[in-house]
């Protein structure tokens, strides 16, 4: 009962915050609305018992992405946030139609195929039979289970991701250094 209430509350907050983030004209307000959306999502993850994902959601999305967005806005001239200009967009109708189409024809059938719409008793029975088949497939709720998964079966994936991120980091440094050198040369030449 309390869980359901919490779910609906968080879901409503998330949807409202997401819509606000898009609609607001003040960029900084928009970023903070986005942060509220991320926080509500972290709450939803906690409700699903996914502690680690919730913590990472806060750490990465609020702590890093949100702050980076603020950083990026600070580097522009719109720091003050007051801006009379607005993007006049047409085609809102077509966008809404497309979104509705995707929801009805792709998402809903997809959700229908999962276990979500089965009754709890039925689901428990199915789980029991599945548990007999492979007893090791317990859902990885805890941090420990997640860590073991990451290290044992998916170690190569993890290493490849790490390599990719390192390459991106070095690339970013190289790009910024290159830009500075060009600037210096331009300053030096005349």
């Amino acid at each position, binding site marked *: 009962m309390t869980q359901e209430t919490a779910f609906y509350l968080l879901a409503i907050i998330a949807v409202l915050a997401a819509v606000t983030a898009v609609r607001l004209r003040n960029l900084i307000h928009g970023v*903070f609305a986005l*942060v509220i959306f991320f926080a509500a999502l972290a709450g939803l993850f906690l409700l699903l018992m996914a502690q680690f994902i919730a*913590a990472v959601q806060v750490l990465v999305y609020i702590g890093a992405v949100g702050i980076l967005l603020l950083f990026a806005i600070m580097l522009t001239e719109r720091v003050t946030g007051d801006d009379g200009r607005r993007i006049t967009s047409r085609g809102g109708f077509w966008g809404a139609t497309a979104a509705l189409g995707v929801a009805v024809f792709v998402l809903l059938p997809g959700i229908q195929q999962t276990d979500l719409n089965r009754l709890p008793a039925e689901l428990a029975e199915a789980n029991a039979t599945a548990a007999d088949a492979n007893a090791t497939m317990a859902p990885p709720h805890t941090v420990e289970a997640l860590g073991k998964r990451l290290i044992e079966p998916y170690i190569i994936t993890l290493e490849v991701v790490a390599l990719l991120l390192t390459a991106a980091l070095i690339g970013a440094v190289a790009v910024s250094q290159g830009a500075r050198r060009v600037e210096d040369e331009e300053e030096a030449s005349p």
Partner: protein
Amino acid sequence: MSWELIRDILITTVPLLVIFPSLFAFTTWIERKALARIQNRIGPNKTGVPCTRISLFGLGQPAADGIKMLFKEDIVPKGADRLFHLLAPIVALIPAMLVLCFLPLEFPWAKFVQAPVQAFLLDGAVIFFFAITGLNTLAVFMAGWASRNKYSLLGGMRAIAQMVSYEIPLVLSAVIVVMLVGSLNAADIAAAQKGYQWHLFTPWGLAAFVIFFIAALAETNRSPFDLPEAESELIAGYFTEYSGFKFALFFLGEYIAMFAISGLAVTLFLGAGEGPGVAAVPALSVAWFIAKIFALIGIMIWLRGTLPRLRVDQLMAFAWKFLLPLSILNILIAGFAWHVAKSGAGTGLKAVVWIASLITLYAVARGLNRISRPEAAPREYKYAE
């Protein structure tokens, strides 16, 4: 939602909300007194019991400060973003308060409590701690931006740059403890240091503690890293436009954050609530925990009275070119030492590893110090001669 659950939550959280804010009042008094002594002043010595001549070394000062703050006029600048201006101090206080519940404080009355409240001792307590303390940056930026004052905004921008940079060495030095213990649970980390096997007493633990403490100073905007609120440069930085109760909330949030991060340092490196007499009287562990927090706060106050503020370029160079490589090296050393200890090596080999790691860490720190120091170029004046 049963009544037992509500009762249990009250039993475990209300003490946190009572103990730490009252410690905050006491700490402001200690800080005033200590700074005054360092600067050869006397400090508060008149305020004591009201309507009498008893002064009690100025112990009434925190109460007087509090009353003054509450009665001050709340001024909001005309151009300010009123909503964000109001929200910023609240956003600053809430994460600081929230992370207190991840500290492994073993209150003597906690044994009357049923299991569910142990949910606070989450599996990933350390990760949650870092995730939630990171929110403080948002509050600082919010305050700086909403005030619509260039000094405030500069303070907020400095705060973001500083906190983002120092969060990395902070987390990397905590990683060592998590790696050695093999758990992110604060209670497990505390239990692993039983028998005075504190992580502080190993070379890698000592190095990690020092890095952690320095990064914690920067994260809580304490001097010598108080650039976001540098009085001589930015008036008061991001809370220039705050007065009255909102200012008090910022102040409270800052001190609670200091308690929280010191509490994490105590948990990770200083054996949590362990100390003489805990085996006989378990209730003493809370007292020891808080005493250790106060020892760290005392060092923070001492440093504030001693060190001058860093320049911005020194700040960044120190985080990225000194602390970061050193903490990465430290992780490698700790991993190596852990493997040596696990392979059942004798005392001789262990001693060799200890001494070698001490020498390596020291030499690398010296070398990095020499390389990473930004050279101060002669000042160029653009608009003056």
